[in-house]
């Protein structure tokens, strides 16, 4: 029986709905979780807002422009967190042997793995991302630095591309686990640190880090480069085409690495 992409999505939505219903039963805890997640990411932005209240510009970006960068990346992150977080627990699957349970399902293994957990409370972060975009747009639209089309790109397209790139990074890191097993610490270097760095204009970082974030861990295409162009601060329109291309290519590369790693698993077990 051939599986179509529609089947996969149906199962993901099913999981999201079930997960929601399950969480809602513990209303207090659910609200607390969403609230807290939203607050903690807001705190990070409040910090930069406080700094910029005093210092006005960070490498030529004011607080509203930073919000327009912070927002889409946060949105991307919330989508990624909701659906693809299980990849980060891959070390556990390898160590406990639970990965065998993934392999006996009639599904591609990545989807079977992701389908183990869909956490809808993470969407709370999406609200914060949207609020930030709204704040930024409230200045940029009237001032003419951002066009309505640009805003649409920021809200609708960029977060999806960002989620794809994050998924690719996560998948590639997890794939390394097929050889090395102990990858939990690796995630800090490949995901958490770059993600924290990606919400600020990449021009503030030293050259080697900038290079890294444009190539091996291409979060630059999930935020900085497109926003740079859409705000008229630099770059060329090619960025709007390059970003989707980078997203697709990195997913494809990550998947190939995954398949290679899986072959390794088939031959040596765990």
């Amino acid at each position, binding site marked *: 029986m051939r*599986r179509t992409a529609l089947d996969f999505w*149906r*199962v993901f939505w099913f999981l999201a709905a079930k997960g929601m219903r*399950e969480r809602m039963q513990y209303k207090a805890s659910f609200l607390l979780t969403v609230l807290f997640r939203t607050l903690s990411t807001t705190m990070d932005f409040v910090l930069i807002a406080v700094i910029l209240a005093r210092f006005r510009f960070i490498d030529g970006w004011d607080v509203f422009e930073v919000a327009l960068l912070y927002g889409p990346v946060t949105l991307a992150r919330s989508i990624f967190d909701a659906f693809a977080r299980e990849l980060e627990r891959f070390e556990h699957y390898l160590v406990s042997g639970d990965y065998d349970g993934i*392999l006996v399902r009639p599904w591609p293994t990545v989807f079977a793995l992701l389908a183990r957990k869909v956490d809808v409370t993470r969407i709370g972060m999406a609200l914060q991302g949207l609020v930030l975009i709204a704040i930024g747009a409230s200045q940029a639209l009237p001032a003419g630095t951002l066009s309505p089309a640009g805003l649409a790109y920021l809200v609708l397209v960029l977060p999806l591309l960002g989620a794809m790139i994050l998924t690719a990074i996560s998948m590639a890191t997890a794939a390394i686990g097929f050889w090395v097993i102990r990858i939990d610490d690796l995630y800090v270097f490949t995901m958490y640190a770059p993600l924290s760095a990606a919400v600020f204009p990449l021009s503030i970082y030293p050259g080697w880090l900038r290079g890294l974030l444009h190539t091996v861990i291409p979060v630059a295409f999930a935020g900085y480069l497109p926003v740079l162009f859409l705000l008229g601060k630099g770059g060329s329109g090619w960025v709007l085409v390059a970003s989707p291309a980078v997203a697709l290519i990195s997913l494809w590369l990550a998947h190939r690495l995954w398949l290679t790693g899986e072959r390794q698993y*088939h031959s040596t077990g765990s």
Partner: protein
Amino acid sequence: MNQHRSAPAAAISADRLAKHFHIAETGRGVTGALRSLVSRKSRLVRAVDDVTFAIEPGSFVGYLGPNGAGKSTTVKMLAGIMHPSAGEIRVLGMSPQRQRQAVAQRIGVVFGQRTQLWWDLPLGDSYELIAAMYGVSPALAQQRLRRFDEVLEIKPLLDQQVRKLSLGQRMRADLAGALLHGPEVLFLDEPTIGLDVVAKAAIREFLREINASGVTILLTTHDMDDVEQLCDRILVINHGRLAFDGTVPGLRTAAGIPTTMHLDFAADLLCELPRLNGDIRATRDGRRVTVAFDRSRVSAARIVAAFQDCGEVTDIQISEPNIEEIVRRVYTA
């Protein structure tokens, strides 16, 4: 209608199956570690070595072996988790290595200590998900669950989160989950481990029914009662090779451990202990005679008849050798 049906193809077959691992030898201490970086010496471990068997559809096969013998490696290869180093595997006519998803659609797997259900969701949701994943219509899924519920009693568990279930409940739930999509072959890895007597009985009855309905079952276990009550065939693997392939009685014979008969007499014996040409070994302790014999060589009736002249028999007991002893005997053979 075709009257001449060809012999059914084996449900599971392995042909000269082998699995080798290269274990890197790391020397001890710092110098050893450094040396291993340079020399890369490794030794070859033959986890599974030249194993051949064929299992007909509808069989219930017990797969025994000491730990580290290659049991779980074999099952992993059959389920498509691991790829063999050499040899061929066929499950339902397909290669689990090359057609993993197609095979997965038609087999069920239950790992004794790990669950494949969704931990945080109510059990009913897990079943809905499984039905959706395997393309089972809700109506059919309901029908099957109702049937499973008759023996496994999972209905009261449907609203509970899987992580809140006890081990016995979870095992029953896992079994139902593995069979929900109507697989033709079921692989079970130590399904009764850690369960109490009642839970084991329920699961065994369920497996019997499932097998009777035509599902081929391969059961890996250390529990000899499982084997005795369920399996019509036994494979014993040791040091990567098949030490035995046959039936439970055949295993007894192969192990060479005799059946024992106790005869209690009303009064002291009036005769010498018969020997029946060396087919039996009899010893006497007071008014009880213990006879050790091979069931396939001499029947119990003959023995009783041979003792007729020794006096009045008040009680006869026959005990089969403990299958643990038998298996141990085969392991150490």
